[in-house]
């Protein structure tokens, strides 16, 4: 097996020499970045490296875990762009439609993902972040269409997306989870408006989505009416599983940035710096190891509640520490603004990386939500009684 793995590594390495975009970090407009993302995705699809986590029947799919790891590691080592624009389409949309979509929906949408159709996720709302089930965007049935009104926020690359995984409220009468439904929305439909969100490091990775009387055919519903919460779990599970392995290995593959920085600042014989670097390196290794072990459990079907939260919390805190170390070693010069790289987490613009790391400590279930999941559902510690919150809000 190791022969094929090493074969794949050298094959990919030489392919990357000829094909990896070298100038993508210079993109200074969002449009330029998006064009670069589209081109890079198409090239990866053609070469069979875009979707190693998909099943075998798809071109480029059916890779073993070991092969996937090699691919992510080599892409990071070659400093190739991370696929941000197609992140939601290749992970969230693919997982949701594969697990919960109808045969017709799968047939219509899955092949288009490889052709470059992009998706965004319409889950969070201004009033529903950690408490996702509290969403208020309404879908009202009108003949064979739902009419949607409301607002979504923190939607990755929504301003460039073709379609949206939309979580809506179809019923307000019962428990809040039970009144949700899951729809597939055309982002070009009348009544859909997006507005990018300027983040603290200067990127615009997320957008708000405004929905005014948007009409979505009932045939675009995933699952039954009222099953939206269940379908949404499939979407969220994809984020906490596979993506974290890719990102962990990309973080490890980018350790050379810290090594270069240590050398450039003449700190390569400083025992304190070396200690912290050695410690961080072992921590990154342990994050990769837990992401590995988690995926192995998923494959074997032995995953327990909370396992994904351990991986996410392990990764998010380590990502922050990774950037923090760079800011520290870089000294004053890191406090001078330098151009940022769009859509990457381990760029070597350490202040920007630090600020960007909040995307992983807040989005996709904040660190605090993960701690609740671990303590309550894994460690069996009791939840606060419901009446506390009622007392507090009175």
């Amino acid at each position, binding site marked *: 097996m190791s022969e094929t793995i090493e074969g794949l590594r050298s094959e990919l390495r030489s392919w990357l020499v000829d094909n990896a975009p070298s100038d993508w970090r210079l993109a200074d407009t969002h449009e330029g970045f998006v064009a670069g993302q589209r081109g890079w995705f198409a090239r990866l699809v053609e070469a069979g490296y875009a979707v190693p986590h998909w099943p075998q029947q798809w071109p480029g799919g059916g890779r073993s875990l070991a092969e996937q790891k090699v691919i992510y590691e080599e892409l990071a080592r070659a400093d190739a762009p991370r696929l941000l624009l197609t992140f939601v389409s290749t992970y969230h949309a693919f997982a949701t439609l594969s697990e919960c979509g109808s045969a017709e929906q799968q047939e219509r949408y899955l092949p288009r993902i490889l052709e470059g159709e992009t998706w965004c996720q319409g889950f969070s709302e201004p009033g529903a972040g950690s408490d996702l089930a509290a969403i208020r965007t309404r879908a009202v049935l009108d003949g064979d269409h739902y009419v949607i009104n409301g607002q979504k926020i923190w939607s990755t690359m929504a301003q460039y997306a073709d379609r949206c995984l939309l979580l809506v409220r179809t019923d307000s009468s019962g428990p809040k989870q039970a009144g949700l439904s899951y729809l597939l929305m055309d982002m070009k439909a009348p009544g859909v408006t997006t507005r990018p969100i300027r983040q603290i490091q200067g990127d615009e990775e997320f957008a708000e989505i405004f929905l005014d009387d948007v009409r979505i055919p009932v045939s675009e519903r995933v699952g039954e009416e009222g099953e939206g919460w269940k379908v949404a779990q499939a979407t969220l599970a994809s984020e906490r599983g596979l993506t974290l392995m890719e990102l962990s290995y990309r973080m490890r593959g980018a*350790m*050379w940035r*810290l*090594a270069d920085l*240590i*050398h450039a600042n003449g700190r*390569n014989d400083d*025992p304190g*710096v*070396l*200690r*912290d*670097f*050695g*410690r961080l*390196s*072992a*921590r990154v*290794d*342990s*994050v990769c*190891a*837990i992401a*590995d*072990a988690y995926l192995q459990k998923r494959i074997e079907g032995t995953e327990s509640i909370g396992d994904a939260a*351990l991986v996410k*919390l*392990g990764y998010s*805190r380590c990502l922050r520490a990774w950037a923090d170390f760079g800011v520290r070693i870089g000294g004053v010069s890191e406090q001078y603004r330098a151009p940022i790289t769009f859509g990457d987490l381990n760029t070597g613009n350490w202040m920007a990386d630090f600020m960007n790391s909040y995307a992983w400590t807040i989005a996709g279930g904040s660190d*605090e939500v*993960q*701690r*609740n999941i*671990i*303590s*309550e559902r*894994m*460690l*069996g*510690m*009791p*939840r*606060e009684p419901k009446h506390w919150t009622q007392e507090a809000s009175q």
Partner: protein
Amino acid sequence: MSLSRDELIAAAEQAFDSQSLAPDATQSWQTISEMGWLAMCVPEDRGGLGQGSEARAVIHHALGRALVPGPAIAQMMVIDALTGGSRSDEADTILEMAMAGERMTASLALNIGDVLSAVPDADMSSHLLHITDERVALVPMASCEAEQRETWDETRRLFDVRIGGEQRLVLAEGDEARTLSETIRGNMLLALAADSLGGAEAALAISIEYLGTRHQFERPLAMFQALKHRCADMRVAISLADALLWQEATSASLSLTRAGALKAQASRVYKEVAEEAIQLHGGIGLTLEHPCHLFLKRAFLNCALGGDADYWEERAGRECLASA
């Protein structure tokens, strides 16, 4: 035949129940011998069970979790030296005795020279492992002077030993000695890491259990989010170090530095969890009759044994810098 991790863990849990902490030393040593654990990682052609590092990690994890006393780590270092060193009739005889439970010992510190520190159960041991830059050898304890040092950790008995006499069984010299000593020390570090994570697991478990039973302000302490989140963070820290432990324990070749970085992480996690365990137990955690302090003391000792985090992390940093 390779045993699966789950089979090994189940057997280990049966041998040392995590509910009976710090069991009797003599009885524990007998159990360890009877379970065949001392022969676990010895090749089959030398009369052992031929298991690898994963089995070693399972054993020390179980010993750490139940705070088992005794010189198991030192004994296995001697056994590693005998199986990895040059073979002779004398070596075979001593190896057989060691696998059967005749106590033999080694320094768990990284010291070199004629006075060894942190040598467990030297007064009960027949042989002492002596590692120098040039040589790996076994010395009869009868020719050494041992002085017991009272340790904070009550689950271990440590001695300073002055090596005496000329009589020794040389197992390796020169480059072979250096390679063998790296193997022995790498295994020691893996064992210390596993012992630490077993202890951390148990310390977290008793803390969570206590928080669930202790009521203040008309509710169990476990209901306070401030405490829940601290437990969750400890769970994450233990699980991350665990993942690294099992990965290293199953890797084809474990480098000494990687083992050191692993041990540094694992023992730090142990110390942090044990430190928190006393705080979470409140007053009862400060009493001698409660086992919390045993974890804290063993954790501190594990941090110090086998080279401390400063040493290993600096070394790991240098290697990463050279290879990144």
